[in-house]
């Protein structure tokens, strides 16, 4: 809490806060005025130069990803599926275009954390601080900045910056509404003080809902990662564990079950005739109380299992058979 007080105090000194002098704009529920938006912009642009300078492009064979330099000795945080097999050669390209040599250290195929070591770090290597929390996760709603090099380094474009908020944070994974692209993978998620709070991991089909590896996920494996160990069930495969069984609906909580917001293209749900606004209430005889329960229950089945789904459509109960698929 002390840290927060200091931040508040600092912002009080540095920024003009017309409405609530004790709370910076980015700690309000949502920005309420142009002044709030400007305060957010000012803070973002104050921390950005350092954040952008420390964000690097990683090249391994014919593929590329992003990473962030966090120590003068040349330690780079990235995603496990980017760094891949421990020991493999990695080329690190700094934001200013300099190319450095390095190698993959450890990775965790389940959480998707990964480390890379620059083997010839220059004296002026740009670095940023990272959150060393072992348990503490970012607050839901916290503002953040996503930086990355989607599609590899593009000197005319430079690194790409997005601003968003934390949607949820669970032990290994943070979800934000920062607009990410494949190839952003491994890039850093910063808080408004320019400290790394996550590493871009997986994109979802919703452009504004993407996943990042949490910092506690790095901390819990810190020694093993530094010792170039490949961890997790899918260790060394270069891919994080993915959810295997797929129904293909995007839902939210509803008093009577899980409300379907979207039915995915080519999904089992679509083939079975599930529609937007349906409320899913049961899978076989298992009651579905909310959106989370639906995901959990679907995952318990093996792909290609036929299940009965009971749902409410315009107030009427319908039962349909769905063959779950592998995704």
């Amino acid at each position, binding site marked *: 809490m002390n840290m927060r007080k200091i931040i508040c105090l600092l912002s009080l000194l540095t920024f003009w806060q017309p409405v609530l002098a004790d709370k910076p704009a980015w700690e309000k529920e949502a920005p309420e005025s142009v002044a709030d938006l400007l305060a957010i912009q000012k803070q973002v642009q104050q921390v950005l130069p350092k954040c952008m300078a420390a964000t690097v492009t990683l090249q391994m064979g014919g593929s590329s990803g992003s990473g962030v330099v966090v120590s003068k000795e040349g330690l780079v945080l990235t995603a496990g599926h980017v760094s891949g097999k421990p020991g493999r050669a990695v080329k690190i390209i700094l934001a200013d275009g300099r190319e450095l040599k390095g190698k993959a250290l450890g990775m965790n195929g389940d959480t998707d954390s990964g480390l890379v070591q620059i083997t010839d770090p220059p004296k002026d290597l740009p670095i940023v601080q990272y959150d060393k929390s072992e348990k503490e996760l970012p607050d839901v709603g916290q503002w953040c900045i996503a930086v990355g090099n989607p599609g590899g380094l593009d000197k005319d474009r430079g690194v790409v910056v997005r601003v968003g908020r934390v949607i949820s944070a669970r032990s290994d994974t943070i979800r934000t509404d920062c607009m990410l692209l494949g190839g952003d993978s491994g890039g850093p998620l910063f808080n408004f003080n320019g400290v790394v709070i996550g590493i871009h991991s997986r994109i979802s089909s919703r452009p504004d809902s993407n996943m990042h590896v949490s910092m506690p996920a790095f901390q819990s494996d810190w020694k093993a990662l530094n010792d170039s160990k490949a961890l997790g069930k899918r260790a060394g495969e270069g891919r994080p564990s993915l*959810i295997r069984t797929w129904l293909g609906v995007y839902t939210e909580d509803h008093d009577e079950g899980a409300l379907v917001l979207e039915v995915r293209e080519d999904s089992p749900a679509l083939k079975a005739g599930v529609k937007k606004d349906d409320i899913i209430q049961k899978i076989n005889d298992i009651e579905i109380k909310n959106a989370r329960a639906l995901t959990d229950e679907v995952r318990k089945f093996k792909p290609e299992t036929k299940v009965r789904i009971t749902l409410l459509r315009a107030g009427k109960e319908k039962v349909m058979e769905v063959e779950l698929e592998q995704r």
Partner: protein
Amino acid sequence: MKNTVKLTRIYFSTFVVFAGFALDAASLSTKLRTDGTLLRETFGEVAEEVAKACTVRIFSGSKPTGLGTVISKEGIVVAKSSEIDTANPDSLKILGPGKRMGRARILTRDPENDLVFLDIGRQVDPGFEWGKTEGLTHGTWVLAGVPEGFTFGVRGGVCSALTREIKKAGGVIGVILGGKDGKEFGGVEVTTVASGGPAEKAGMKKGDIIFSINGDDFFEREKMIEKVKSFDPGTAITVSVKRGDEELDIEITLGYRALVFSELKSRNDKMSGKMSVRRTGFKRVIQHEILLGPSDMGGPLFDLEGKLIGINIAKANRVEFYAIPAEEIQRILKEKAGEIAEARGEN
């Protein structure tokens, strides 16, 4: 097809988590998100009025073909040219500003930047001031005019990359040159003709041996591809082929790579949903992250003072959007002033 292989590898790091992932209690309510209703209200305070005053919707008959922006009191509207390429010029209509629907007439086009200038045939107050994009940098808020029900609103995001030129991707004839080539062979062998593509429509067949483009001989695959790519989509070129003992000249109108080879999309493209068909080849663009659809192109981009700083021109992929800076628009408008005046004079 070397390019395709490379793309797939570059994008190996794209990961997808589908499945019914759920919003549980500990997640941020949608209204509080960056694209949520509360933020939209705040963005609206800045630019909703001006967005309503200058944003219009363009229709080809009854089919919506994108947005436009009124850029002068004389009722000149700028829009994305390729979106109305196929429209019958006599069927063009514009809804707005306000609730008025009227006929629109094409005054002139600027193919280089994919812009079209239209006349709505009445005086209107576009209600905006031109802004400057000089200080625009990473993290600067920008706001886009978008349709909202029967009227217009704004959505916000930040400028996300350097303002720059986007190089042309070039056109394609829609074949795969997977066979033999070289001087001794006497041309380049066509191994696949993309179904529905420009080459198929023009009558090219699998097994044809291409040896000349617009009268210039080409025997090497790479050089031939390079030559074709140097033309814009929409350009007609003459392709000479050997078929058995015959030699044929085939005229082919080049297509957009993304349309012709849709099955060869990169993983990112597949995750992107609909994008703008023409999304490369712009002299100068601002890049932003406001979540728009391809049909929102042609609409205005504002700064936090509500000044017009650009015209949205392309949805490049799922999260990257381009706008032509206000200064470019003003420069083109000046350059085209003569043509525009002439076209209006004929009225």
